């Protein structure tokens, strides 16, 4: 296929998802703020009043550092997974590089992610933490998470065309991951022998890096960032390969 600038197409697809979602809602973007705040309040209540947890100061900030990267991951992954099937009309009838369908869906979710990150930073500052130089690492950390979700969604969205069960697998995996990502518990209580496992999980890595930067005011360990980088890029490359291989039969299965 001849080279073409796909920026305009990507921008329009993102805008489409965004418009469709908010056009018929009365509260609109407010939902992006409400959901993490409610989760934060509930988890803080449970883990400071019911199971008192003295080890972690400012538990609400601590838990929000976990909820926001995880929420983005969970929602973007599910919507990315069902995107190819959900856009069957486009995929079957319109000439376009099909990779753009799951990628634009994930990127459309980034708009909420940005709003929620702004919320996180506001809560961090309100709790008395100061801006530090390591904040400059945040775009890289969150950016790698987006790359990871894009790669993962390329794989699962392609598989979902052939087996519609994939979306349920993804939903179940999200429920499991909520417990296996250190959202409401600290990484320090995880036994050492499981540490590597956690660090190779990009979502856990993002949560840990967030806490390092925002709450401890220090740079995340180089090894953590390196693992995050490797896993994210690996998934992106694998995603493009798998999708490229499976897309040839999409029109026959949709």
């Amino acid at each position, binding site marked *: 296929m001849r080279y073409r600038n796909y920026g305009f197409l990507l921008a329009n697809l993102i805008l489409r998802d965004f418009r469709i979602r908010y056009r018929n809602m009365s509260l609109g973007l407010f939902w992006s703020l409400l959901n993490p705040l409610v989760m934060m309040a509930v988890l803080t209540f449970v883990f400071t009043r019911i199971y008192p947890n003295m080890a972690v100061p400012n538990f609400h900030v601590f838990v929000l550092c976990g909820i926001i990267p995880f929420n983005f991951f969970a929602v973007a992954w599910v919507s990315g997974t069902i995107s190819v099937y959900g856009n069957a009309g486009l995929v079957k009838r319109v*000439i376009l590089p099909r990779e753009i369908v799951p990628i634009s869906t994930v990127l459309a979710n980034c708009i909420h992610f940005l709003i929620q990150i702004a919320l996180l930073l506001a809560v961090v500052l309100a709790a008395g933490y100061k801006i530090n130089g390591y904040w400059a690492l945040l775009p890289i950390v969150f950016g790698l998470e987006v790359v990871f979700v894009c790669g993962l969604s390329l794989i699962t969205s392609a598989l979902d065309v052939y087996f519609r069960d994939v979306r349920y697998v993804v939903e179940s995996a999200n429920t499991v991951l909520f417990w296996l990502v250190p959202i409401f518990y600290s990484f320090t209580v995880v036994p050492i022998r499981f540490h590597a496992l956690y660090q190779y999980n990009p979502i856990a890595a993002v949560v840990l890096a967030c806490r390092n930067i925002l709450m401890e005011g220090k740079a995340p360990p180089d090894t953590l960032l390196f693992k995050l980088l490797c896993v994210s890029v690996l998934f992106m490359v694998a995603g493009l390969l798998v999708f490229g291989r499976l897309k040839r039969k999409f029109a026959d299965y949709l």
Partner: protein
Amino acid sequence: MSVIRLQEVSKIYSRKISREFLRSFLSRRLMPASHEAFYALKQVTLDLKEGDSLAVIGSNGAGKSTLLSLIAGLSWPDEGKVEVNGRVAALLELGSGFHPDLTGAENVRLNAALLGFSRRRARDKIDEIVEFSGIGEFINEPLRTYSSGMVMRLAFSVATTVEPDILLIDEVLAVGDEPFQAKCTRKIQELKNAGRVLICASHVRATLRALCSRAVWLDHGRVLRQGPAADLIDEYERSIGGA
């Protein structure tokens, strides 16, 4: 130079494909010969040059849409080779890529992007597209309030403004009213005069006669005949028992 060349192209659809995917996958691997294969297209050979216009005729299920989607690059042949040189614009389904909750104008922009417009070109052409469609003041209303004729007008207006090298049209022209159809015919003539290739699948034979010089008649996935459009359409009409 050939703009489109198909050499012995076949497209197979396996039956029961989605319900028993695993089993059909295994049986295809283990016993390739015994597998129940259904040819949507069988050994189709075509050669189209600049300025050619081809009518695709045949009954429902003859393989017309499959042929167009192969040429568009939306599906891949199981056997044979498809060569396409040039930018393809396809109108394969009424308003595919349109979204009912977006307004006409938003849909035009989205569709222009889908058809490969750059940002600047979309901005320059958008008024022209809206004007050609003749939608008027409804352009800022959501698409779900449009009639199917209005949706088609919009889709056609965008697709022809791309000035594609190859324009594929599947059936959709039929829903426009007569003045708009006349307008479309003129627009397509312009494209043809500029050396573009047109392929049109339809049951509206008057449209095909007006637009196409050549025709291919498909029957159960095979090419039954190829030749000048006027003769072949006459013959096709006789075979199905008059007009």
